[in-house]
């Protein structure tokens, strides 16, 4: 179609979703012909490919518009094969019974960090497809998400994907689904999303096995705010699921939590192209815009009602997501600070769960203390800043939120070691724990058990299903943010999967470990650790710094300490010989230029007392701390 260029409706420039070019005839779809579903799958098990096939089968995009993983609009989503933000797409499917059904697919993220988004997506649907790789089987994240779906009373249709691969063992995996999850997998749909095999069977199962939504057309409007994002042209776009009543263009709506009243100026759905149909009825999903400029005015989980005839009670909302992992982000080049501030602001426009505030470090200069939903969230924000905003960043070691119970009975939340109060004033410190589920081939069990023990884990459960072990452990979160994923991956050669949920706070023997170079503390390297881990961690960091800090004109002592007690020490001996052997008449200009360059390089050095530490040393030293 030769439409004039129109603003994109989705938050990031991506696939062809153009607003306002299909003023569609309002069609009432009766509830019995609507199915709302989401897809639950582990990374790489084929969720996005299946979504592509479903869209293609139902003609949402033609062959020219189709590209791999159309729903993952961010580059980073497509490259890493993960979905970060929820999206919806409406499919019109003519079923074997001759009727046409409106199928609303809610694409959900698969990762634990985005469990909050998962729960929002699930709340908007009545059923789920559980996609499992027919050779890999159920993974930890799948398990967590499927339990969430069960909690939301979802009807679940198991789908075995990749059955065309030689390694596929559908019978074993079906048995595993029954053993691990307790779902009847006898009539699982066997597909290959890649080749398109049996896609129609999936669509038939959605129509036949998933329940239609319930709702009253004549009741006062109740629509759930599932998500919202900022579009530079349209303002805030709100993703909704209508429960009762009707949402129409020109209608005066009211946000029940904030009380704000607005006029709905666009109402429509995605195919995945944005289609302005002008109305959404009960059971339907779609988007609205209402001239809102600030994303904070649209509280996710809020209920939209009609201003003239409001609903008596709002829908059950969501628990707000709160950051659990914190770190400092600093520009490598101090001149980039303002650019970083603006970039963080832009990201926060579309990510209410991400927090940041200004922070100053002697080692790293001006930067921001940022809060994330988890390590993947941290990594994604960091990567987006570097790629989309072209920033070069230093990330400090991730920290969790400690509850400092003071002797005066007050309780302080602390996530920055720099804010550690005087230990004399602290009565005790509580730290967050998680309940982790790890699934792995049993030959790696020994190594993983040792890792969990080393990280102060408490074993809750160990079961074997289908040749795989399922471990449930209680672990302190601060042990997990410290390179746990990396270790898990390397011990299991990448075969272990991991998921967790927060599991409350417990008192721990926690101390602040400082790193000193020639007796000068280096703030960026101080961490809160459990006393039992301090010596090991301190030794590791000192050894690492010994390799990273170049020899200087004099000897340097690198120490780790708790208070005034030194727990680890390394010495960097003085530079032995560093002089040009020959320097004659012809060399002067050349050598002077080398010296000038060296002088330039010093701008990238940070001074601690007499010691100069290259920024690259911080970056490398801090790397050991992140997942």
């Amino acid at each position, binding site marked *: 179609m030769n439409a004039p260029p129109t603003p994109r409706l989705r938050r990031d420039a991506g696939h062809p979703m153009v607003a306002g070019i299909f003023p569609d005839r309002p069609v009432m779809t009766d509830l019995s012909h609507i199915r709302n579903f989401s897809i639950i799958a582990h990374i790489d098990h084929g969720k996005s490919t299946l979504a592509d096939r479903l869209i293609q089968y139902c003609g949402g995009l033609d062959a020219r518009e189709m590209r791999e993983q159309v729903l993952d609009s961010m580059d980073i989503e497509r490259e890493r094969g993960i979905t970060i933000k929820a999206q919806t797409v409406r499919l019109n499917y003519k079923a074997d019974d001759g009727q046409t059904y409106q199928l609303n697919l809610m694409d959900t993220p698969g990762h634990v960090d985005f469990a909050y988004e998962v729960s929002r997506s699930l709340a908007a649907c009545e059923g789920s497809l559980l996609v499992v790789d027919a050779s890999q089987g159920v993974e930890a994240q799948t398990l967590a998400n499927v339990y969430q779906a069960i909690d939301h009373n979802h009807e679940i249709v198991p789908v075995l994907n990749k059955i065309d691969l030689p390694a596929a063992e559908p019978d074993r995996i079906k048995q595993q689904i029954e053993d691990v999850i307790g779902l009847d997998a006898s009539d699982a749909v066997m597909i290959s999303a890649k080749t398109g095999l049996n896609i129609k069977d999936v669509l038939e199962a959605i129509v036949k096995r998933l329940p239609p939504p319930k709702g009253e057309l004549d009741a006062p409007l109740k629509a759930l705010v599932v998500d919202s994002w900022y579009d530079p042209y349209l303002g805030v776009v709100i993703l909704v699921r209508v429960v009762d009543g009707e949402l129409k263009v020109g209608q005066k709506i009211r946000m029940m939590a904030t009380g704000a009243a607005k006029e709905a100026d666009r109402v429509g759905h995605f195919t995945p192209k944005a289609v302005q149909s002008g109305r959404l009825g009960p059971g339907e999903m779609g988007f609205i815009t209402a001239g809102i400029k600030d994303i904070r005015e649209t509280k996710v989980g809020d209920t939209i009602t009609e201003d003239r005839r409001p609903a008596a009670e709002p829908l059950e909302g969501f628990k707000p997501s709160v950051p659990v992992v914190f770190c400092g982000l600093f520009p490598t080049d101090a001149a980039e600070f303002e650019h970083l501030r603006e970039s963080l602001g832009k990201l926060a426009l579309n990510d209410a769960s991400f927090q940041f505030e200004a922070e100053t470090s002697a080692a790293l200069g001006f930067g921001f203390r940022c809060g994330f939903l988890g390590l993947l969230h941290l990594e994604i924000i960091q990567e987006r800043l570097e790629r989309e905003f072209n920033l070069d960043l230093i990330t400090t070691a991730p920290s969790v939120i400690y509850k400092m119970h003071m002797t005066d009975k007050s309780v302080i939340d602390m996530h920055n070691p720099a804010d550690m109060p005087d230990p004399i004033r602290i009565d005790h410190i509580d730290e967050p724990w998680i309940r982790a589920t790890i699934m792995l081939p049993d030959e790696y069990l020994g190594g993983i058990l040792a890792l969990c023990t080393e990280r102060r884990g408490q074993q809750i459960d160990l079961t074997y299903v289908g040749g795989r072990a399922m471990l449930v452990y209680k672990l302190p979160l601060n042990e997990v943010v410290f390179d746990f994923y990396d270790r898990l991956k390397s011990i299991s050669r990448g075969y272990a999967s991991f998921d967790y949920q927060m599991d409350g706070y417990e008192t721990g023997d926690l101390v602040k470990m400082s790193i000193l170079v020639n007796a000068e503390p280096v703030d960026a390297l101080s961490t809160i650790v459990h006393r039992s881990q301090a010596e090991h961690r301190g030794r590791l960091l000192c050894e690492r710094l010994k390799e990273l800090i170049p020899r200087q004109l*004099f000897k340097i002592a690198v120490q780790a300490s708790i208070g005034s007690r030194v727990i680890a020490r390394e010495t960097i001996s003085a530079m032995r*010989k560093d*002089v040009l*052997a020959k*320097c004659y008449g012809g060399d002067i200009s050349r050598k002077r230029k080398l010296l000038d360059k060296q002088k330039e390089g010093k701008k990238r050095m940070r001074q601690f007392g007499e010691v100069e530490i290259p920024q690259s040393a911080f970056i490398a030293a801090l790397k050991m701390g992140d997942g």
Partner: protein
Amino acid sequence: MLPLTPPDADATPGGFGLYVHWPFCASKCPYCDFNSHVREGVDQARWRAAMLREMDHFAARVPAGRRLSSVFFGGGTPSLMPPETVAAVLERADHHWGIGDGVEVTLEANPTSSEAARFAGFRAAGVNRLSMGIQALNDADLKVLGRKHSAPEAMAAIAMAKGIFDRFSFDLIYARPGQTVAAWQDELSRALDMAVGHLSLYQLTIEEGTQFHTLQQRGDLVVPDEDLAGDLYEATQVLLNQAGMPAYEVSNHARPGQESRHNLVYWRYGDYVGIGPGAHGRLTLKGEKVATRTHRAPEIWLQRVEEGGTGAHADEVVTPDQRGREALMMGLRLAEGVSLARLTAEAGGVNPVDMAAVDRLSRHGLLTLDGDRLTATADGRQRLNGVLAALLE
């Protein structure tokens, strides 16, 4: 402070030298990144004429009244020059700037027997100091270093040079692949038995663009690490101090009074004219310091001189800021150190040195400041790159 060499006839600080670059070698050594070329059949008459012509070009630019303190024939391999060419160059230099009795005239020589046969001719042409590239005193290492002479040949050449020149020096390269401190001490002791007044002892440095660099990149050449290089350097200082030839510069040792006056011109940041392909010069012209540089390729240089009187590229003015840094960088190489007043004058009235850093480095025993004279200690010289970086905040 070492006794200075006899007062310069030239009044400019640092003195005034002439450098003559002879770019040809019989073969290319694998460690050498100097401007050297292997050529069959050099047209000696043309080259002689071109050298003289380029000297005339610079003589016309240098203010009248300057007097040479030294002449240096470097290369390449200047001992491959016909003695007549050397004589002609010296005669012309004498004509322009005067070569009095006290003027040092050095020629670099390789100790092959065919070159040693010319030593008397060089002496007769006016050369009064010979500097020989011995590099090692054992045949195995000479082979590794790609040298064309044998150890016995080297020793014969040294004996011959001693009979002809009052002043002579030779170079050795240490920190060779596989070299131990003990082996080097032994070799150095034998060298000291033969040395008269001056020795240059260079740590092998792998320069980009050399065959050694390629080998090192491939992992086929391993040279001593920083710690072993430090041990070798320190062992060198001990032996040479015992022998009464302390370091007067990072890599140069002499009995007092036997220092290379020409090289002191560089380190004291004096002026020098550079002629021949790839030669550099530094000239004070109308109060500005000017860096000169000639074309490196022998044939192009020759053609340009024949067509326009010089193979020089456009001058580059060295800014006061750069002058201060250059004078410091060169001066701290010397045991005698450098005058802060002189540095300040070069830098246009601003002291280029961070005096707080001087304080700090002095506490660590790397520098001394005695009145106006800033000196790197032996420890400081051994780590001069770091010291310079610290001084130039």
